[in-house]
């Protein structure tokens, strides 16, 4: 019963996102992808395929990130603004279910979005090479890692969405994303400093912040190199654990929120 209710919220969030015409950016994306593949084929030497894969994966990542942030920031706030939340909560639904459903809904949106964008990438790849090489299968690993990244961003966004306004949530999420992309530098900084306090602070920061740099394997797969199964497993576990922690925190904050 609880699972069904949560799933219904997730599906509704997805439908709402589709109505927002978010997915229509895909057409532009595919066109840009093919056009850039043709353009770079003309002006570069010997790495058309590498360029296409890198552009494709980076575009999926950047477009998806924008979608995750700009849909994520309104997840809770919009429902309160439109007062649709009150109708929903008047039913036998727990507040945490609402948060979990919203999180799942945005993840489904991003999954569908990424799947369609990936079709664009594979189509462009086929257009360029007229065949798929066995090592091309590793592109799926990179796409999977991008999805994991989106899931983390969605969780961060949802968290801020529960405690702040949409604009501030966007700013905070972008900042966390940027800092999270530099997380290895935070640790290096701590290793260089002689202050014990600073060492501890940077170490805490290093482990507390989400590690978005874990998912950067686009350059590796663009050369046809495989990704170790252990890394795939560890990144999956990391994302599940970290995202669950944030969703639980968000649900707790939202549950204690005065909605009057």
């Amino acid at each position, binding site marked *: 019963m609880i699972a069904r209710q949560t799933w219904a919220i997730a599906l509704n969030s997805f439908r709402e996102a589709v109505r927002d015409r978010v997915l229509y950016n895909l057409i532009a994306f595919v066109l840009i992808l093919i056009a850039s593949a043709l353009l*770079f084929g003309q*002006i570069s030497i010997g*790495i058309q395929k590498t360029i296409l894969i*890198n552009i494709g994966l*980076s575009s999926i*990542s950047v477009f998806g990130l924008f979608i995750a942030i700009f849909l994520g920031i309104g997840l809770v706030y919009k429902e309160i603004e439109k007062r649709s939340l009150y109708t929903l909560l008047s039913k036998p639904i727990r507040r945490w279910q609402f948060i979990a459903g919203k999180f799942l809904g945005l993840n489904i949106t991003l999954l569908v979005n990424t799947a369609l964008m990936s079709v664009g990438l594979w189509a462009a790849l086929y257009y360029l090479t007229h065949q798929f090489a066995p090592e091309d299968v590793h592109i799926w690993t990179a796409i999977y890692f991008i999805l994991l990244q989106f899931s983390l961003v969605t969780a961060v966004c949802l968290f801020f969405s529960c405690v702040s306004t949409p604009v501030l949530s966007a700013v905070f999420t972008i900042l966390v994303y940027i800092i999270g992309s*530099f997380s290895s530098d935070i640790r290096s900084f701590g290793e260089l400093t002689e202050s014990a306090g600073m060492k501890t602070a940077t170490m805490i920061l290093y482990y507390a912040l989400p590690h978005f740099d874990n998912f950067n394997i*686009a350059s590796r797969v663009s*050369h046809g190199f495989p990704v170790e199964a252990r890394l795939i497993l560890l990144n999956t576990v990391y994302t599940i654990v970290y995202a669950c922690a944030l969703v639980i925190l968000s649900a707790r904050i939202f549950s204690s929120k005065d909605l009057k």
Partner: protein
Amino acid sequence: MTVSKRKRMFTVCVLAFAASLLVASARVQMAIDREESKASEVPEALLIPSGNVVRKLSMGHDGLMADIYWTRVVQYFGGRLRDRHYEFRLLPQLLNITVTLDPQLMIAYNFGAFFLATPPPYGAGMPKESVALLRRGIEANPDEWRLWHYMGFIYYWELQDYQNAAKAYEEGSKHSKARTWMKVMAAAIRQKGGDREISRFLWSDIYQTTEDETIRENAQKHLETLKALDDIDEIRRVANLFHDQTGRWPQSFEEMSAQGLMQGIPQDPQGFPYVLKSDGEVILNPESTMRPKQDPLSR
């Protein structure tokens, strides 16, 4: 004048005015282009000279940034060659940023090394920087035996450092995928140094394996030069034979033909006739673009 005629007249006037504005904008654009061409003569500089900084700023999109920087290398190199500006100050930096962003981007080492090492007008004439780039490539891609080959080649041809050239071929030959001739090459260079046959073999390999037109053209020119050097040796031999038979140096190729020592006037691979000097010395035609000085034997 009827209303409809007036309207048509008005439309024509508006169109003519818009067209004249477009022409005017084209004139202004020409002036802007002239201004910009002056500005492009200002010494170039890289806004971010560090590959590590670019990598950090790319926030995970370092592969894409490497591709962009590699395209920039190609554009920079090609543009300078096209404009006959043979100073490639930014080339080593651009290549270093590219391989810092993506150390597995083999094309940057394969082509970059030649772009750097080859003397003008085919390259930047920076063989030491080229060797440094290849060393980075070998460090990041220890399985790529061809990088040893390129390094050995640059030591051999551009730096005439036969000891290091032989060492590079020897190191490369240790790889399981390396061609067997790598070992032979190491021994041959160690034994003979700057040998024309070795040069021919190496340039032939570059010619057959490169995908870049500039590098292939350069290799072809060197192969032609080696052929011309062989021709010159042969003509000298025939001139000596003529001297032995007649007691004097031949004054023309026709004289040697009349003596039955050769047929017609010999031409170099570019189609220019060789020049026979009065003392029996044979040289390339001044109009020929071949560069025999590049041959280690004639330096």
